């Protein structure tokens, strides 16, 4: 098994494009190493992208934020301004595993592991984040909701990697929130996840919203109907009920060891409502 740690995106892409047999990108390794140990994966080449500065940087760009694919949850948490602008994204990244895991796990890895239950993905999708991909044919931007096609299925070509994410500029009175349901208080994989990002006007009316649900379908969902259900409202009780209904209607979950179809569908509505209320509360105080 070969290990390479190139210091440039081009170098990483070249290695992956030229790879014979199975090649894997190593960011935080919190999924890759587990799958290797469990004999689920036995790659011939591992490309560690943490030595590439673009993947490790957090910077302001066009009024928004660019986050390197290999930035860890713990590093995001320590970034005060980012945390203020995108509390939902940062809290989602810090729900991934334990303190120890947050010291390693990255946004890029969480997305590219291709799990519908990834915690940071609904938050990124709700945020309207765009993934910047670099590959043999150059660079392209793809909305995060279009990167994952299904369990372990990604829209990446051979040799293509996620280099960074761009979070859009934040209008005044905007904020986001992410909630997930797990049986314990920590450590579990999300049974349901809900990310909401919204903007309110001076009168407290919701002018824009994005709602994303995790672990309720083969891929993380962007639920337009759920957003429409609250836009133009103050998230009063009827709006909350419309939101819950729209969220549940979008669910196409499975029964597994972590939850039943009924449970996931029911709780998806509850979490969407609770996340929206938190986001609203944050937005109002974000002048």
């Amino acid at each position, binding site marked *: 098994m070969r*290990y390479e740690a190139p210091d440039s995106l081009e170098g990483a892409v070249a290695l992956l494009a030229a790879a014979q047999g199975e090649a894997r990108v190593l960011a935080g390794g919190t999924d890759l*190493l*587990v799958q290797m*140990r469990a004999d689920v994966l036995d790659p011939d080449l591992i490309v560690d992208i943490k030595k590439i500065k673009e993947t490790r940087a957090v910077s302001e760009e066009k009024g928004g934020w660019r986050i390197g694919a290999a930035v860890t949850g*713990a590093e995001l948490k320590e970034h005060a301004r980012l945390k203020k602008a995108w509390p939902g994204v940062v809290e989602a990244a810090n729900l991934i*595993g334990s*303190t*120890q895991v947050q010291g*390693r796990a990255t946004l890029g890895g969480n997305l590219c592991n291709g799990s519908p239950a990834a915690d940071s993905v609904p938050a990124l999708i709700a945020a309207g984040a765009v993934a910047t991909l670099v590959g043999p044919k150059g660079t392209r931007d793809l909305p995060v909701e279009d990167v994952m096609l299904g369990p372990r299925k990604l829209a990446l070509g051979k040799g293509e990697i996620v280099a960074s994410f761009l979070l859009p500029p934040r209008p005044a009175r905007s904020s986001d929130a992410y909630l997930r349901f797990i049986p314990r208080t*920590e450590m579990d994989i999300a049974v349901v996840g809900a990310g909401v990002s919204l903007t309110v006007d001076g009168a407290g009316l919701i002018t824009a919203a994005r709602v994303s649900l995790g672990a309720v379908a083969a891929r993380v969902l962007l639920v337009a109907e759920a957003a429409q259900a609250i836009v133009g409202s103050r998230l009063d009780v009827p709006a909350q009920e419309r939101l819950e209904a729209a969220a549940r209607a979008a669910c196409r979950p499975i029964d597994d060891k972590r939850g039943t179809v009924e449970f996931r569908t029911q709780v998806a509505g509850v979490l969407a409502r609770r996340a929206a209320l938190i986001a609203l509360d944050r937005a109002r105080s974000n002048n």
Partner: protein
Amino acid sequence: MAKHHIEATVNGDAVEFLCETEETLLDVLRDTLNLTGSKEGCASGDCGACSVMLDGRLVCSCLVLGCEVAGRKVETIEGMAKGESLHPLQQQFLKSAALQCGICTPGVLVASKALLERSPDPTETEVRYWLAGNLCRCTGYDKIVSAVMDAAATLRKG
């Protein structure tokens, strides 16, 4: 293929070792460097018994490849006591009987030290969530959490 030749710093000492790509930092610490204080409870990042500091960041050494630590600083339980004297956390764990079988203790201590370095006066809730990645099956966590908070008080007194 040939093994990787890695140079790193472990508990302040310069070390060199050879490892295969698939060997984790935990494998290297235990099997190559004979530092068996870090324990393997799950090899999947779910129990925290292998907790170490990597460049000042708390991680599970079972989720780090040996070849990733080239040129980096690793601190393990073996480096916690300074010379003759135990770290206040180690002393408090003994005083408070905060261990029973002791298999989780090295990981818990390394994680607790990392917490107190960031947050010298943590609340009980803060301690519990910080240590959520360190499974203990014997103590019910009660005496562990108390010991961490009491050690924090001792450290604050300096």
